[in-house]
C-alpha cells in the first residue's frame, strides 16, 4: 500500500477555484521519484476515486473554499480544524467516511469518496482536507494574489505535515 496521495481538484479556468490543483502540483515537484508518494488532479471528485484512494494509507484532498469563517457545503466544526491552520487563509482538518448522503449529485464529496472506499474496498485511509480560501471565481485562468498568498501559507504548513508522514 502506498503512503500518501495528495489530490487537488477544482476548475483552473475559474480563478481561485484552481488553487487546490496548484497545491497538488507543488506536491508533485517534491514527491518526484519518491516511491509511495503520489499526486492526482481533476476537475471534481468522482466515484472511481474511491478505488484510487483505497491503495493509500494517507490522503489529502486539496480544494478551494470561500473565505472564513463559514463556507457553503460541509463546514467542519471549528474544533476539528487543526491548530496552526486557522486564520491564515486555509484550514486543514480530518474527515471521516460519510455513511449517508443527504443530497446526492454526480459530484462526490471527500467524505463520500471515503465512504465508498470503505464499503467497496474495506479501506479507510487517514484523510484530511486542505481547504485554501479564495476571493474571486470569475472566468479567468489566473488566481488572485490573495489566493496565491493563502496557497503559500498552506504550503508552509504542509511541509511540516508531509515531513511527519515521510519520517514515520
Amino acid at each position, binding site marked *: 500500500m502506498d503512503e500518501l496521495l495528495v489530490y487537488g481538484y477544482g*476548475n483552473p*479556468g*475559474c480563478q481561485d*477555484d484552481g488553487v487546490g490543483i496548484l497545491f497538488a502540483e507543488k506536491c508533485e515537484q517534491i514527491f518526484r521519484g519518491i516511491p509511495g508518494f503520489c499526486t492526482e488532479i*481533476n*476537475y*471534481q471528485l*468522482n*466515484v*472511481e476515486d*474511491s*478505488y484510487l484512494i483505497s491503495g493509500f494509507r494517507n490522503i489529502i484532498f486539496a480544494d478551494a473554499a*470561500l473565505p472564513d469563517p463559514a463556507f*457553503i457545503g460541509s463546514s467542519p466544526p471549528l474544533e476539528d480544524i487543526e491548530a496552526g491552520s486557522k486564520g491564515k487563509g486555509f484550514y486543514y482538518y480530518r474527515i471521516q467516511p*460519510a*455513511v*449517508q*448522503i*443527504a*443530497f*446526492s*449529485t*454526480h459530484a*462526490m464529496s471527500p467524505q*463520500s469518496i471515503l*465512504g*465508498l472506499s470503505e*464499503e*467497496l474496498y474495506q479501506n479507510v485511509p487517514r484523510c484530511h482536507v486542505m481547504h485554501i480560501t479564495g476571493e474571486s*471565481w*470569475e*472566468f479567468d485562468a489566473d488566481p488572485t494574489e490573495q489566493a496565491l498568498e493563502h496557497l503559500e501559507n498552506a504550503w508552509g504548513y504542509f511541509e511540516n505535515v508531509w515531513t511527519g508522514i515521510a519520517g514515520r
Partner: protein
Amino acid sequence: MGRKITIEPVTRVEGHGKVTIKIDDKGKVSQTRLHIVEFRGFERFVQGRPYWEAPVLVQRLCGICPVSHHLAAAKAMDVIVGAGTGDGLTPTGEKMRRLMHYGQVFQSHSLHFFHLASPDLLFGVDGDPKIRNIIGVAMEHKELAVQGVMMRKFGQEIIRITAGKKIHGTGAIPGGINKNLTKEEIAPWLEGDDPLNADKMVEWAQGALDFFKDYQKKNKDFIDNFSAFPSNHLSLVRKDGALDLYHGVLRAVDYQGKKILDDVDYQDYLKYIREEVKTWTYMKFPYLKDLGTDKGWYRVGPLARLNTIDYIPTPLAQKEFEIYKAYTKGKPNNMCLHTHWARLIETLHSAEMIRTLLKDPDLQGDDLVTSGTHEKEGVGLIEAPRGTLFHHYAVDDGDLITMANLIVSTTNNNVPMNSAVNIIARSYMDNQKEITEPMMNAVEVGIRAYDPCLSCATHALGKMPMSFELLDSRGQVIQQVQK
C-alpha cells in the same frame, strides 16, 4: 387552495435545474416547468479567439462531458481547415478520435446507470432518500457498485490515453489528432489483468443489460408506462443506417417510424432546425422547422438513436438490439424508462468498439493530420452520450472566430423533459392532499432518464445557492429550505 411546488435542485443529474409545479384550487396540476437557472455564454466568450483554440476552449463548458464538445468542435474546425466534413481525416486521425469518443460514451453511460439511475431502480422511486444513492447501492449491492466504479475508470483511462488527460484533453486538433498510440500504451487496457481490460468491460456491459432486462420483466408496468408519450426522434446515422456515434447524416422519424428527415448533410442543419426562446428559462427549444414549434420538437439520445437506426455494427449489441426492437414489434420505442435499456445497449456497443479499435494497427500510424483549402464556416455534429450535439463556427480572414452556435444534446431534449415533468406531475400529484418526497422524486426520475447535462445546456461557476420554496396560491411562502 392552490399551491406552487418547487423542486430545486433536481438531484442526481449533471448541473442545476429547478422544477415548478402549480396546483390549482381544485387540486389539479395546472402548470409544470423545468427551469434551467445557469447561464454560461460560451457562444459569446469564444468569439475573437483563434479557431484552433475552439476544441480546447469550448470543452470547458462542462467537466462531465468535455470530450463530446472537444470532438464536435474539432469536427467543425476540420471543415474550416479544409479537412473535409467528417470523413476526410487520415485513418489514424479518425480512429484515435473514435476511440476517444467510445471511451467517453462508455464511461458516461456507465456512470449514469450505476450511479444516477440504479438507486431508483434498486430502492424504488419511493425508497428512503438516505440510502437512495451510490453509497446505498454500495452497501446493498456491492458487486454492482464495484462494476460501476471500474467501468467508469476504464472509460476514463481510454480518454486519458487518447486525449492526453481525463478532463479537458487536447488530443483532437483541426484536421486530425496530435498523437498516436503505441502498442505499449494500449497493452494494459487490452490484455491487462482483470477487471481493467476490454474483454471484462464487454462482459460487464452484457451483465448490466441482463440485469436491466430482468428488472424490466419483474417491473413491467412501471418501466413500460412511466412517462410514456409519443414524440419525434432525431440522431445521426451512418449512411447505410447503422448506429454510428461519431459521424453520419441526420435522420428524424416520427413516433410511428415514418422518416421526417433522411440522409441530410448536417452542414445544412439550419435549413431544417430552429431554436425557440422562452422567458422562464435560459435553455432554448429546438424544433424541426417544417413542422413548427408545436409539432416539430424531438427527442435525442439513446432512445431516439435506437429508433432512427436500422442496425448496430457490432455483434453482441446487434443481438440485443434485435431483442429490444422485437419488444415494440419493430416500431419506435416511446417509453421513457426504456432509455435505460437503450443506453445499456449502447454501452455494450461502445465496449465492443473499444476492443476492436485497440487491436487496430492504424492507431500506430504516423499520418496524423490533413488539410486543404480553408473555409470560412464549419459545422461539427456528434452523437454525445446524451444525444446529438451541434457545434457551428464562422471565422474571419484573420482566423478569429466571429460566430458560434451550439445546440447541446440536453437542449434538444428540453421539450421532452418538460413533457415528462408534466405527465408525471399529473399522474402523481393530481387530487393529492399532500405532496410527498417520493412524488417529487418521481418527477426527478423522469428527468433523470434523459441523463441531462444542465451545465452544458446553457452554455456556474463556483457556488450555486440552492433553495426550496413552497408557495400558496397567493404567492406567499409557506415553507423554505436553504442550502
